[in-house]
C-alpha cells in the first residue's frame, strides 16, 4: 500500500518535471525569453563562453567560471567539504574510545611495494591536474580528489602508514586561508572580493589567468587534505 502511494506520488512529480522539460511552453513568458537564451546578455553562460577567455586569459573557461565569475560559490563548496570532514571527525571522535582498533594484517609484499611505487605518481598526477587547472580540464577539486585517492591507496596497501592528523589540519587551514587571503587582497586592492588583480599574461601559457592558478592550487591542497582526512578518520587508524 505504502509502496503504491509512494510510486503514485513520484509519478506525479515525474510528470511535472517531464512537462517542464518537454518544452511545451505553458505561459507567455517562455516564448520571448526562450528565443533569446542564446544571446550573451540574457544567458550569462553564453557570455562566459564568448568573453571569458579575453577577460581572464584562462585557457579553460570552466576554471575562470569556477574560480573567478562564481568563485564565491566555490569558496562555499570548499567550506561544505571542510564541514563534512570536520563533522565526520567530530562524530567519530566520541566513538573512537569505544571502538576496538582492528588488527592490521600486513598486505603482501607485492601490493605493498606496488602501492609505495604508485603513490608518488598519483600525487604527481593530482598536482598536475590542479596546477594546470586553468589550462586543461580538471582543477582543484579533481586534482584534490586524485591526491586523496593516493592516500586511499596507501591505506589499502600499506597498513599502518598514513597522514598525520596535525599535518592534515595545517594543510587544511593554510590552504583555506590562502584562498581567502587571495580573495581579500582583491578586496583591498581593487575593492572587490575575489578580484583577479594579478597580471593575466597571455592565454594558454602556464603563468596566465592571474589569481586563478593560485586559488586552484589552494583548492587542490584543501580538497586533497580534506578528503584525505575523511579517509584517515574512517579507516579508524588516525592518530
Amino acid at each position: 500500500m505504502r509502496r503504491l502511494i509512494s510510486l503514485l506520488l513520484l509519478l506525479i512529480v515525474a510528470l511535472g518535471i517531464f512537462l517542464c522539460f518537454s518544452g511545451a511552453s505553458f505561459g507567455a513568458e517562455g516564448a520571448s525569453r526562450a528565443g533569446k537564451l542564446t544571446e550573451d546578455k540574457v544567458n550569462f553562460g553564453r557570455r562566459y563562453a564568448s568573453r571569458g577567455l579575453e577577460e581572464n586569459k584562462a585557457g579553460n573557461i570552466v576554471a575562470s567560471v569556477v574560480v573567478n565569475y562564481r568563485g564565491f560559490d566555490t569558496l562555499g563548496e570548499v567550506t561544505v567539504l571542510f564541514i563534512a570532514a570536520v563533522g565526520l571527525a567530530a562524530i567519530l571522535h566520541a566513538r573512537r574510545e569505544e571502538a576496538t582498533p582492528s588488527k592490521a594484517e600486513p598486505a603482501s609484499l607485492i601490493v605493498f611495494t606496488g602501492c609505495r611505487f604508485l603513490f608518488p605518481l598519483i600525487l604527481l598526477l593530482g598536482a598536475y591536474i590542479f596546477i594546470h587547472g586553468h589550462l586543461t580540464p580538471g582543477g582543484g577539486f579533481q586534482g584534490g580528489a586524485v591526491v586523496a585517492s593516493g592516500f586511499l591507496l596507501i591505506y589499502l596497501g600499506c597498513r599502518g602508514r598514513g597522514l598525520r592528523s596535525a599535518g592534515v589540519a595545517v594543510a587544511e587551514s593554510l590552504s583555506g586561508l590562502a584562498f581567502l587571503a587571495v580573495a581579500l587582497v582583491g578586496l583591498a586592492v581593487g575593492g572587490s572580493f575575489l578580484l583577479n588583480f594579478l597580471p593575466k599574461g597571455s592565454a594558454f601559457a602556464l603563468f596566465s589567468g592571474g589569481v586563478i592558478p593560485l586559488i586552484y592550487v589552494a583548492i587542490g591542497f584543501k580538497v586533497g587534505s580534506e578528503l584525505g582526512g575523511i579517509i584517515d578518520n574512517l579507516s579508524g587508524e588516525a592518530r
Partner: protein
Amino acid sequence: MVSPILLIAVPLGLAFAIPVLGLASKRVPRYVPVIAMLFNLVVSVSLLPHALKAPIVVRTAGWAPPYSIHLVAGPLGVLLSSLIALIGLLVAVYGIDYIREGAKVKYQILYILMLVGATGVVLTGDIFNLFVFFEVLCISSYALVAYRGDSTGVEAGAKYLIQGAIGSGLVLIGIGLVYGTFGTLTMADIAANVSSVGSFRLFVSLAFLITGFGVEAAIFPLNGWLPDAHSSAPSSISAILSGIAIKAGLYAIARVVYTVYGASSILPFLAVLGIVTLLIGEMCAFGQEDIKRLLAFSSIGQMGLILFALALASATGISGAVFLIVSHGLAKALLFLASGYMIYRTGSRDISSLNGIGKRMPIMSLCFTVGAFSLIGLPPFVGFASKFTIVRAVLGTGSTFFITLLAIGLIGTVIEGAYFLRIVQGFYFKPAPEDSPEQTEGKVPFSALVPVGLLAVLILTIGLFPGIVGRVLGPAADDLLDRTAYVQHVMGD
C-alpha cells in the same frame, strides 16, 4: 563603510584558522567564535544605517551583478545578520564552558561555519549562492546535532541528514529549472523577467524551491526531522537551530516567493499552511514530557505563525513576521540555553524532574520564565509586541479569510500558554522530586549566566521599547515586498 562581504569572509577565515590555532593551544579555539561573532555584530550594526538608506550591493570578482555573484545587504538582510551575530555571540559565550565533551575544537569550527551559512543565506543575491550557503548551514547543523556521538544524537542527525538532503536535492532541481528557463541565477534578473507564475514550468520550479526550503523552514508536513534534531542536539546548538537556522529557511522561502517570483497567488495557500503548522506544533508540544522536545515543537508552532504573517503580503504583516523572527529567536535561544544547564543539574530532560528548580537555580528559572512569557505573548515582553503587530496586520487586511485563520491561530496561543505556564508553575510551585541527585557539575558558570541574563534583559527592553527594532521593520518589509526597487538597486539603471 565596511564591505558586507567581510561578514562572511572574516568568520570563515577564523574557522579555517582554528585547526592551526588548536595545535598551538588547547584553550584558544573556544574563544574564536566569540571573536568572530563580535566582529559580525559590530559590522552588521554599523552597516544598518547605510542599508536603511539603500541596499548595499557587493560585487565579487569585479563583475556587475548578472554576470557574477553578488551580495545584497538590504535592511532585511542586515537586520537578520545582526540578529544572527547577536544570538551567535551570546550562544558562543555560553558554549565556552558548556561544551565539555567530544571534539571541542571541531565543535567551535562547525559552530562558526553554521552561522556563516546563515549569514550568507540572508545576504546573498544569487539563487545558487543561496543554495550553497544553505548547504553550509544545513550540513554543519547535521554534524552538530550528531556531534556528541551518542546514539540518540546520531540517529537524530541521520534523520535530519536524510530529510535535509532530500530538501536540498529538490532545491537544486528547482534552481536547475529556473536556470534552464532564464539563463541566469541572479535573483533580481529573474525577478525582472518573471511575468507570472501561471506558467506551469515556473510553477514547478517554485514548488520544488518551496518544498526544498520548506524542509529547513519546518513547515508542517516537511518538519519531521525537527523534534528529534532540536531535542538531541546540545542545548547551545538547539538554541541556534531554533533561533536562527529555521528562520534562514523561512527567509529563503520569503525571498523566493516575494522577490524572485512575485507569486502573490500562492500566498493564501501559505497562510493556511502556516496556521496548520502552528496548530500542529502547539498541539504536539502540549503533551510533551521532554523539555527540549517541547521547546522544539513550540518552535514549529512559532514558525507557522511567522509563515502566516509573511503570507499576509502587507507591509505590516511582513514587519510583524520579521519582528516575530527577532523575538522568537531571542526567546527560544534563551529557553534552550537556560534549559541546558537545568538538564545538567538534574541529569534528566523530564519536565517533572525540573520541578522546584526555581529554588536551586533562581536566575536561570527567572530567565526561563521571562522567555516563556515572551513566547506566549504576554506584555511587557517582546513576544507581545511582535504578536500584536501580526494581529494588527491581519485585522488591517480586513479580509474574512485571514481573520478566520487568525481566530483559529489564536487557539494555538492559548495552548502554548497552557503548556508553558504549566512548566513555570512546576519550577516555582511544585516540590522537587525527592530522588533528584544534586549534581555539582550543574553549577552554572559565569559564562552561561551572562548570555542568558542578557537575553532576558533584551527581551524585556525591546518589549518595553519596541521602537528599537521597530524602525528597521518597515524598510525590511519593503525590502521584501518592493520588487521593482530591488531589481533596480541590483541591476542598476
